[in-house]
């Protein structure tokens, strides 16, 4: 059952990305371009998403298990450290350059645009590099 709900949640997530405009790099860069002709649409994507998800997450935070009996796998870390901020800054630079973040990249993958294929290839490479560096650090 949880496999099915995971698949459905992924599907709905993809529909949301495609409908919202997040899957159009020009739209994303238009939102990030405060000094130019600013398109505020993506602020509403965030508002719509948080508006719907706020109560469910408030409920989930107080629970040990999900409705289907899975343990709640919520992050426990509390501290603000250099990795969090530095990593997020790097991500933001990449997001600003291409106007693509991980969700839309995957939601556009089957369309076969070379830009998406190259982006996902490079992103997976970056993630693999992180894993290799972490492995080295821990051994």
């Amino acid at each position: 059952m949880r496999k099915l709900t995971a698949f459905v949640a992924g599907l709905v997530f993809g529909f949301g990305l495609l409908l919202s405009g997040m899957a159009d790099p020009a739209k994303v860069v238009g939102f990030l371009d405060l000094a130019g002709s600013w398109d505020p649409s993506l602020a509403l994507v965030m508002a719509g998403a948080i508006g719907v998800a706020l109560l469910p997450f408030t409920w989930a935070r107080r629970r040990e298990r999900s409705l289907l009996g899975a343990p709640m796998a919520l992050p426990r870390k509390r501290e603000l450290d250099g990795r969090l901020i530095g990593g997020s800054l790097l991500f933001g630079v990449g997001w600003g350059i291409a106007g693509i973040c991980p969700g839309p990249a995957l939601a556009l993958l089957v369309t076969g645009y070379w830009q998406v294929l190259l982006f996902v290839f490079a992103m997976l490479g970056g993630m693999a590099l992180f894993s290799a560096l972490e492995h080295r650090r821990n051994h």
Partner: protein
Amino acid sequence: MTIDWAGFTPWPALAGGALIGLAAALFVLLNGRIAGISGLLGGLLERHTEGRAEKALFVLGLVLAPLAWVLFAQLPEPDFQVGWLGTLVAGLLVGIGTRYGSGCTSGHGVCGLSRLSPRSLAATLAFMAAGFATVFALRHLFGG
């Protein structure tokens, strides 16, 4: 600052955002998991990860979404902003950055803010600020 009223699409943005929120809510209520795309993807790349099947199926649903979408409507046409070098560098930065930063727009921006996580608020402010600064530099400082 001038507002691009011609490009402003409030209703699809709100409705799409609501669907994203609904998906994140379903995933946490039913599977007990965070719908953070970089975290799910990064987990799948690790040799050992718990819940691999659920993570893979969420990602599969996301990847297959356009195929179900075309049954009802035309796919939006993405308008890419950079050439191959920019795409390559951006992908690398997004891959490394989201793993060091433990999340991206979905994990920190949607799920993290919805559960009122201070870490996610800090991360979201950081990547938004970097995104604004990068576009400013590329478009207005170095011309574009």
